[in-house]
């Protein structure tokens, strides 16, 4: 009755070949967690899915009313509502998955205390599952595209790598914040504020070109800048392709944060339970 399985218990855990083998072993669990999160979110709610669409929709309406005229001239002939909604879509994906994954360990503490599985599955399943909500909200974008008679082209396929990089960046941030939050519970209070400020530092409701030239370099250190601009271009193809430097920088920083966040999380995952 030997299965040949087993594990070692050590004071520290790190990202190593063991780590990848373990993730593979628990792969079914990742899928189950994602499925469970989605099911739990949509079960027992009446408007369920509708809420995720209402939020960006409402914001878009507000932005259009108050800022539409201000930014119109910077965005060419792309209707402002489309411009804003496109930005909001990606932003909401990032913002929600970051907030949820940051607090995720505490939500699952009843499980983490009783049973073992690689803790990273918790934030990972949230970050992956958030894409599902994104797709739901994208339906409205599709409708808006039809309404405004805007055609899409092959550049739409670029969405895939953009989403991938966005979620990897989110995962890195989320892992980092989740590990901190499990130990120091005031981290979660900082997150709504962080997200609000961050949104203003991202070209969600305004184009990046609105930012004065001298700040542009510093401004582009925020990976969401390059990602949002690229995202909008991929869908609407309005105006020039955003500067490759900014996209390149976004991808580089995004991936670096991913690696660093995951490594940090792995290092501390063994003792998270002690403070949950």
């Amino acid at each position, binding site marked *: 009755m030997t299965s040949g*399985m087993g594990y070692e218990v050590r004071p520290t855990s790190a990202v190593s070949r063991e780590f990848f083998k373990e993730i593979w072993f628990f792969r079914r669990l990742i899928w189950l967690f994602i499925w*469970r999160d989605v099911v739990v979110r949509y079960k027992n709610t009446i408007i369920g899915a509708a809420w995720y669409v209402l939020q960006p929709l409402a914001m878009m309406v507000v932005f259009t009313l108050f800022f539409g005229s201000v930014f119109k001239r910077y965005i060419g002939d792309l209707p402002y509502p489309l411009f804003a909604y496109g930005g909001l879509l990606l932003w909401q994906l990032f913002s929600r998955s970051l907030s949820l994954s940051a607090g995720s360990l505490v939500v699952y503490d009843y499980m983490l*205390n009783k049973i073992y599985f690689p803790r990273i599955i918790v934030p990972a399943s949230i970050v992956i599952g958030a894409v599902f909500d994104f797709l739901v909200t994208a339906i409205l974008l599709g409708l808006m595209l039809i309404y405004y008679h805007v055609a899409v082209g092959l550049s739409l396929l670029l969405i895939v790598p953009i989403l991938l990089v966005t979620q990897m960046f989110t995962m890195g941030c989320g892992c980092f914040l989740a590990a901190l939050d499990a130990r120091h519970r005031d981290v979660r209070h900082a997150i709504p504020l962080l997200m609000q400020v961050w949104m203003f530092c991202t070209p969600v409701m305004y184009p990046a070109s609105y930012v004065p030239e001298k700040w542009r370099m510093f401004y582009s250190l925020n990976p969401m800048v390059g990602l949002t601009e690229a995202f909008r271009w991929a869908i609407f193809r309005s105006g020039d392709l955003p500067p490759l430097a900014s996209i390149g920088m976004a991808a580089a920083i995004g991936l670096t944060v991913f690696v660093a966040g995951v490594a940090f999380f792995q290092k501390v995952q063994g003792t998270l339970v002690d403070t949950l």
Partner: protein
Amino acid sequence: MDDIAIRAYSLGKRYRIRETGGVTGLVDLARRRLGRPGDGPNQFWALKDISFDIRKGEVVGVLGHNGAGKSTLLKVLTRITNPTEGWARINGRVGMLLEVGTGFHPHLTGRENVIVGGAILGMSRRETLDKYDAIVEFAEMAGFMDMPVGHYSSGMALRLALSVAIHLDAEVVFLDEIWAVGDHAFQYKTWRRIEQLIASGRTFVIVAHNLQIIERLCTRCLLLDHGTLTMDGTPAEVIGRYRDELRRRSSGSGVPVNGGSTSGAGGVDIVEARLDTDDVRRGERLHCHLVLEARAAGKVTLGLSVRDGMGRTVAVCTQGEQPLPWSELTLLTGRNSLRCAIPVVFPAANTFELVLELRGEDGLAAYADLPFSVTEHEVVVADAGGRGVSVPALTVDWRVEEGVAE
């Protein structure tokens, strides 16, 4: 290493106690980064230098007083938490049921949670479904599996969790205090099932306060005391040592008057506190002897309560019909010898503590802690379904009265 299921080497686990009694904020993080950790008043070692080898098929019981580190050891061995030092190697698939709680997600149904449980063990959906019927039947949960687990009573959820832990294909199983799950018949069933699993070669690590269970199931025992492994031997040896320690802890461990009161009034010491026997049968009486030394005559109140293995109060002793949980006594100067008999109405197969609190006129004067265990004389009978069921045996004595009238 082939026939070793668990090898532990010098495992240690240190916890930091938060000064503010909660989780630290970021300011504490900064302070700690700039300061130096190391051993200090805010740390304690829950485990220190634990080493042992457990071979495949062994059934190892882990004994120790409350807070000795038993649950911590299991948490470390099952990777719930990392050790601070040392390492361990576990060979084989692991199943566990730790402490009270199930690890189930309340919004998912019982069926879905069983699948999750299987996935955690690395089983495929097909493998889990193969065992599904047996799991449901053992847990007596037929018909409830499509309800969300959040709607189950705690008993139902625990039975299901226990059933899952036992049935899924684990080679090494960790069980921590699972013995309070379910009613008597269920506990008996659990026991029989574990015996079957043991016979099939699985390795078990069991934590239980119930010495009977340890005696009957385990092939080996580890004794923990304040985080260190003080003994590793046969159940008989270890249980003997454990009982000795309990007895030692309980004899006259009263604390003399504190606060440096020199007035003498209310100054009382416990010279001796003991029970007639530390193994009582349910339904009988527990006799407690107390010898008090009083510096001056006066009134004292004696609080007597019974606490279970987890420190919860299960009964308090009152005087007469008063609802107050203590007795008032008037003592004479010098030695006072007291005794009382407590009816044993507590569930069998458990260890309890009789906690004595003596208060003089100026507050808590002395305290004693007397452990005892409750056994039940039981007999196995066949129930309506022909299954063996363990029931309490009550001794009765028929007495012939006056002849029966025609």
